């Protein structure tokens, strides 16, 4: 891990003002910001851990916890909101037994929300990993969940 972090830092010429892009690269590499990676960053870039954690908790793009295999992202932008996104989010929270922002213990599912994906015409939108599902209803959401192996309440 130390080596990986070092090579990312070098890519930015060990320049402290690039700390946010460096964190973004670390996040992309590991899918989240592992503690050891942040320790390595602190040692190698010469910035205190307090500053790193200040940044990592301020910006939404960063996560200190690992993410699930399936990342479900519900758009909560205004357009999706007035078209019923809250119902979809409620349904997902209930069915996956997760709150928005949480990841299931078995690291299968992460439930997240985002404010506008720029595809408002298709609202409400659910993105699973990088795949967009538009004009969602509860029935369609149930199908998507079944497709990724989640347990959905039986029909009959």
């Amino acid at each position: 891990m130390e080596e990986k972090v070092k090579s990312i830092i070098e890519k930015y010429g060990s320049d402290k003002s690039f700390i946010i892009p460096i964190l973004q690269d670390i996040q992309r590499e590991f899918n989240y910001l592992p503690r050891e990676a942040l320790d390595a960053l602190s040692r190698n870039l010469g910035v205190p851990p307090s500053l790193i954690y200040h940044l990592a908790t301020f910006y939404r793009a960063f996560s200190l916890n690992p993410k699930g295999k399936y990342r479900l992202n519900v758009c909560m932008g205004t357009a999706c909101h007035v078209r019923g996104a809250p119902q979809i989010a409620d349904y997902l929270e209930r069915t996956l037994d997760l709150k928005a922002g949480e990841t299931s213990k078995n690291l299968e599912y992460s439930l997240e929300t985002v404010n506008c994906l720029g595809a408002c015409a298709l609202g409400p939108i659910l993105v699973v990993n990088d795949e967009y599902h538009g004009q969602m209803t509860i029935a369609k959401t149930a199908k998507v969940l079944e497709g990724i192996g989640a347990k959905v309440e039986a029909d009959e």
Partner: protein
Amino acid sequence: MNKLESMKELASLQEKLRKARDPKKPCIVICAGTGCLAYGTQKLIDNFRAEIKKRNLQGKVDLRTSGCHGFCERGPLVVIHPKEIFYQRVKLDDAAVIIEKTVLNDEIIDRLVYKDPVSGEKILNEHDVPFYKKQTRLIFGQNGQIDPKSIDDYLAIGGYSALAKALGGMKPDGIIQEIIKANLRGRGGGGFPTGWKWDSTRKAKGEPKYVICNADEGDPGAYMDRSLLEGNPHVVLEGMIIGAYAIGSSNGYIYVRNEYPLAVSNITLALERAREYGIIGEDILGSGFSFDVKINRGGGAFVCGESSALFASIEGRVGEPRQKYVHATDRGLFDKPTCLNNVETWANVPLIINRGSDWFSSIGTANSKGTKIFSLVGRINNTGLVEVPMGITLREIVFGIGGGIPKGRKFKAIQTGGPSGGCIPEQMLDMRVDFDELTKVGSMMGSGGMIVMDDRSCMVDVAKYFLKFLEEESCGKCTPCREGVKQMRIILDRITEGKGEESDIELLEWIGSGIIDGSLCALGGTAPNPVLSTIKYFRDEYVAHIRDKKCPAGVCKPLITYSIIKDKCTGCTACARVCPTKAAYGEKKKVHTINKETCIKCGACYDACKFDAILIE
């Protein structure tokens, strides 16, 4: 690729590329904006490619993937040149039939043709579709003509001519005067006169000077900046280079929102290509002027769209705004003179340089010139991006271009200005849209989000939605914003749960005015607007929640019940099948019932019922 050493070389390259574009040659243009891609358009593109290869049509038929055309509602969109046949809602496996019939045999495929839902008329050409016809697509219109990944496409339609004109024959001061005379105002929200901002930055002491493009686009429900950056990155770059030359800056940044990966990759590619041609970098087009741009991906914080927070973020700090007693034009990024403009503002610059300030200022109203791109979303038939001249009425946007409200429902309000803006009621639909008029009615232009709401949208819920958003996004530096917004949200929670008190409305107004006066930056300074404007125009709805414990729009869960309208229920069992708690039940072909005790008001039955037999009240 050869580096262009002079304006002359640029002109001859443009000419060559323009001539190489045979206007009679068939060309299939596929919209590959984010909206259409979300419909699965990549598959359609692959199918077209494969089909062209299979039939050995390479060289005879061109294929172009363009940026967003704006009519996202009807995607996937395909336009077939030279006749500009407009196909919408194209199926992913339609590639073969389109090539066979339309491209090779000039036949129209009826089911793909757009039918005007109002008149029922079939419309063959893209530019005749009312959605487009009623717009003035000065900036956005180029999206359909180019592949954003190809600098040659942009050059072929005359791209970078404004840059050559500016570098070749205009003095920096002359350019600034031209922008001032055009009366271009910032499209990022505040509407500050762009020319004066450039002028101050030019005159400020300190080196180096920075020029920044704000592509943070945090307004949840607005996506025009994204579509410009994705669909026409070079026009933004061209504007920035001209601005940098006028201001005397050789360092630029583009601060782009983290959630916009396609925009990041298209602008990155555009920069590389422009650098190869010598359009950006050292000694641009042999003029002696040098300028380069770095791309900075945002960290996903709404407040980073604010100028001083944005600077902090680029500098590698948390995005907290600072006091504005010094202007950014004097001390901005790294404490140096900085000019920050919005994506759309930059995109207007080449247009003004090419066609002159007199032409530009002939469009619009007394103090708002040119066009503005809005994202028209929510409960509207034609969702999409629309570019209109300043001064157009809201009614024309909603009903003329937007095609009105789906399912014949009733228009209730339109929200403009995002989280800083307000809701405008029906009786004001004939107002003219410009910077000053919108501010006068308690809303604002903002970045250009327009969210249409009908009688099934609850205004208290919408106000609560924006406050929740701002509560999460407040940086927390100053107390009125951090605590005040939270308290207002708690009061709204109470009201929407049926626990509101008569005095709550006054309390909201009182806290709101405190937040406006006491906040450090405009996030807090405008945060109460959505609440205050809905209280102003929709007080009845607040009163209904508080006094009658009812949500007239049927949105606020604790205040509504679901039941079945006996006369309409056919006993189809659709509701019983989807209900997650088995609250909806009944025998086949008999009227169903909803058990109010176990109903969790999730809305599944309402979605599933084909006979409108579910009553929410």
